[in-house]
C-alpha cells in the first residue's frame, strides 16, 4: 500500500506548481488553469487525510471544492472572454489601464 505521505507530498507539489504558475505566467487562461491546479492539489490532500482518518468529511469537502471550481471556471472564462473582446489581448502585463 502506498503510504499516506506520498499523497500529501503529491498534493503539496501540485499546489506549489499551481502557485508558482499563478505568479510567473502572464497569460490569463494559463493563470486560471494554475489556480485549478492549486485546488486539485488541495483535493488530493483532503482525500488523503480523509482516507487516513477514515472520515467522510474530507471527501465531502473535496466534492464541494470540485463543484465550486466548476463555477469558478465558468465565471473566470466569462470575464476572460469579455476582456478579450475589449482589449484583444490576454497578457496580464498589457492589462494596465488602472495604475496611478
Amino acid at each position, binding site marked *: 500500500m502506498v503510504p499516506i505521505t506520498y499523497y500529501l507530498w503529491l498534493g503539496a507539489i501540485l499546489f506549489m506548481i499551481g*502557485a508558482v504558475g499563478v505568479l510567473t505566467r502572464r497569460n490569463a487562461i494559463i493563470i486560471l488553469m494554475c489556480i485549478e491546479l492549486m*485546488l486539485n492539489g488541495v483535493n488530493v*490532500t483532503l482525500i488523503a487525510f480523509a482516507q487516513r482518518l477514515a472520515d467522510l468529511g474530507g471527501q465531502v469537502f473535496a466534492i464541494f471544492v470540485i463543484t465550486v471550481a466548476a463555477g*469558478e471556471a465558468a465565471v473566470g472564462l*466569462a*470575464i476572460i472572454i469579455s*476582456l478579450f473582446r*475589449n482589449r484583444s489581448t490576454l497578457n496580464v502585463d498589457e492589462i494596465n489601464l*488602472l495604475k496611478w
Partner: protein
Amino acid sequence: MVQTLNIPLPDLSAIAPELILTAWVCGVLLIDLFIPKDRKHYVGILSLVGLTLTFLCSGYLYLRGENLSLFGGMLAVDGFALYFKMVFVVVVMLTIAISLRYLPLEEINLGEYYGILLFATLGMMVMAASTDLITIYLSLELMSLSIYILAGFIKKDPKSIEAALKYFLLGAFSSGILLYGMALLYGLSGTTNLSGIGSYFAQHDLSHEPTAILAMILLIAGFAFKIAAVPFHMWVPDVYEGAPTPVTAFMSVGPKAAAFAALMRIFLVAIVAVRPHWNSIFWGLAVLSMTIGNVVAIAQTSLKRMLAYSSIAHAGYVLIGIVAGNQIGYASVLLYVLVYVFMNLGAFSMIILLCTKSGRGDQIKDFTGLARVNPWAAAAFVVFFLSLAGIPPTGGFVGKLYIFAAAIQANYVGLAIIGVLNSAISLYYYFRVVMAMYMEELPGPLHLSTHPVLVFALTVMVLATLFLGLYPGPFIDAAMSSMAPLLPKAGVLASHF
C-alpha cells in the same frame, strides 16, 4: 436489508432569513424576465422589499436571543451571526438605493444586477453563521463569485473588465491558499467542525508543530486578501477604481465585514490555542495596513483610489480590536463594522451624486467648489470625512475610541499610539477634498443628482453616522451582547463595563 436513512430536520425557522432571501432571489430573477427594459428599477424595489422582510426576520430572531447550532454543527444561529446578518442586509439595501440612479447612467440597467447582489448577500449571511470549514468555504465562494461578476458589470468599459479580471485572479488565488490551510487543519484535527478543531488544539500542544503553524499562516494569508490588509492589498486600489461605483461601495464594506466575521469564528474558536503565534502576525498586519494605507492615500488624485487606500487603513484599525483580544476589543470590532458601513457607503454615494454620462465624478478635482453649488451635499461629505478620520461627534470617533481603549487595556499602548498617529495622517488627505469643496472657486458648471432614492439614502447615512456618534449606548450594548457567544470559546472572561 433495507436501510432507511434518517436525516433529522432541524427547526428551519432559525434560518428563516436565509430561506426568505433564497426564495426571493429566485423570484426576482424570474420576475425580471417579464419586466420591460426601461423599468428595471422595479426589480430593485422588489429586492428592497425582500431585504426588508429578511431584516425584520433577523431582527426578530436577534431580539428573541436565539443561540442554536444547526445541521450537525454546520451553522450557528447566535447573536454574533444575527448581528452581522442585519448589518449585511442594511449594506445591501443602501447599495441598491444608490444603484438605482447609477445603473441607467452607465446603461447597465439589468435585472440580473439585483439578483447577483442578493446572492452575494446570501453568501455573506451564511458566512457569518458558519461554524464549519465546509460552510465557510462554500459561503465565501458564493459571495466572491457574485462579486467578481458585479465588478465587471460594465461590459463595455475596459476598466471595469480589467478590475473584474484582477479581482477574480487574485481572489481565486487567495481562496486556494485559504483552502490549503483548511485542508491542513482538517488533517491535523480530523474534523471540519470549528469547535471540534478547537478542542483538539486545546488538548494537544501544537505550538511547535510545523503543520499547525503552516495552516495558520495560510489561513491568515487567505483572510488578509479578503479583508484587504497590507501586504495582501495590491488588488484593492485597481479593483475599487475600475468597478462600478455602487459595487465598489458594496465591496469596501460587505465582503470585508463578512471576512472579519469568518476570521473571528476561525481564529477565536478553532485555533485560539496558538493565539501567541497569530496575534503577533495580526499586530504586524494592523500596523502595516494602517501606515501604508494612510500614507499612500495622500498621493492619490482619484477619490475612488483614495477611499480604497483609506479602506485598507480601516482594515488595520479593525485588526487592532482582534489583537487586543479582550471583550471590549472584540465588541469594538462589531461596533466599528457597523459605523464603517454608514460612513464608507456614504463617501462612495457622494461620487454617485456627482457622476454624469460624460464623467464618473471620481476625481478629487471634480468636487472643487461643491459647497457653493450645494452646501448640503458638501456638509454631508464633511460628516463622512469627519467620521472616517475619527473626529467627534460622529460614529467613527466612538468606534476608534473603543478600539484604542481596548488596545490600551490589553497593554498594547504602542499599537494604540500608532493608530492615533495614523488617524492624524488620514485627516490630511480627507481634508484635502474638504478644502477643494469649500476654499476653491467653482471651475465650471457642476451637475448634482436629485434622484429621490439617492438623496434619501444619503440622508439616512448622514443621520446614522451622527446618531452613532451622539448616542452610541444601545449599539455598544448590542455589540457586547452579540460577541458574548464567542467569548467563552476564545477564553475571555466576560464582564460588564
